């Protein structure tokens, strides 16, 4: 059926209830999940941005805004249904729409978690030690002496400009 065809309400008496139920559930789910993300994300980002808590708050809010936009937008886009002539069909249509929405929310959720992981990793990685243990240790006094000799050489060869 042509997606732009308007289906008269009398032919599909259950369509409007389906739409209403879908809208309520979709908005409720999105808001609930956004709250979870906001709270857990705050803990996480506080660790990542230890020295700037305002930055942590800002990043958190921005991510939540993005989450809202994507999910409510996607929910609105897939809302349109072709028809619900019986209660059974109404239930099926509702289940299908909610299923599609939940799957997309799940994907967004894991993507968010991956983003958090990457942000955290980027902050951590500058502090980590070398990947392998050294095979040998030179006594520090010989190297320090040699380094001092080199510095003396350099001072001789390249005298500091006035």
């Amino acid at each position: 059926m042509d997606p732009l065809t308007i289906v008269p309400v009398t032919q599909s008496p259950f369509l409007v209830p389906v739409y209403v139920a879908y809208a309520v559930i979709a908005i409720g789910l999105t808001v609930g999940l956004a709250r979870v993300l906001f709270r857990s994300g705050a803990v996480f980002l506080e660790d990542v941005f230890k020295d700037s808590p305002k930055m942590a708050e800002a990043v958190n809010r921005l991510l939540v805004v993005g989450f809202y936009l994507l999910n409510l937008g996607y929910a609105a886009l897939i809302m349109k249904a072709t028809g619900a002539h019986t209660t059974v069909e109404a239930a099926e249509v509702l289940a299908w729409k909610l299923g599609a929405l939940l799957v997309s929310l799940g994907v967004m959720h894991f993507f968010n978690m991956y983003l958090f992981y990457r942000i955290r990793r980027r902050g951590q990685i500058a502090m980590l030690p070398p990947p392998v243990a050294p095979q040998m240790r030179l006594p520090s006094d010989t190297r320090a002496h040699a380094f001092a000799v080199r510095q003396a050489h350099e001072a001789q060869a390249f005298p500091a400009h006035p």
Partner: protein
Amino acid sequence: MKRLTVLYDGTCALCVRCRDFLATARTLVPLELLSCQSHEARMRDGAVPWLGEELVVVSDDGDVWAGPAAFLVSLWALADYREWSYRLSGPALAPLAERFFVAISSQRRRIATLFAKPRCEDGDVCRIPHLDHEAHSPRVPYR
């Protein structure tokens, strides 16, 4: 650790290419690139048994890494490849990374002929001009 010194084979074109790459790459630890044939390398780090045979990385604290370990530590120093140094040192990829590095290191002269100048028999003509300040030792031909 404030600085890492990378001691590479100054007579091998492949090693010089890698050295040039390290000189321009973004690092998380300051790198000093020194040819192992240079006078300074012999003076400072002559006690290292692998000097001249393997890639050697020495920190200013006196820690020494040689061979595949030195390769991983050089990666670790680069900002864009630090994550890779951890991956390649993990249990899954470590044997592969080690084999890869040993293969390249042992075949480095052969690989160098792919993009280096032709072999020069008279040591005076084939030189690496921009490395003159590093090599205070007698002239070595660029192979």
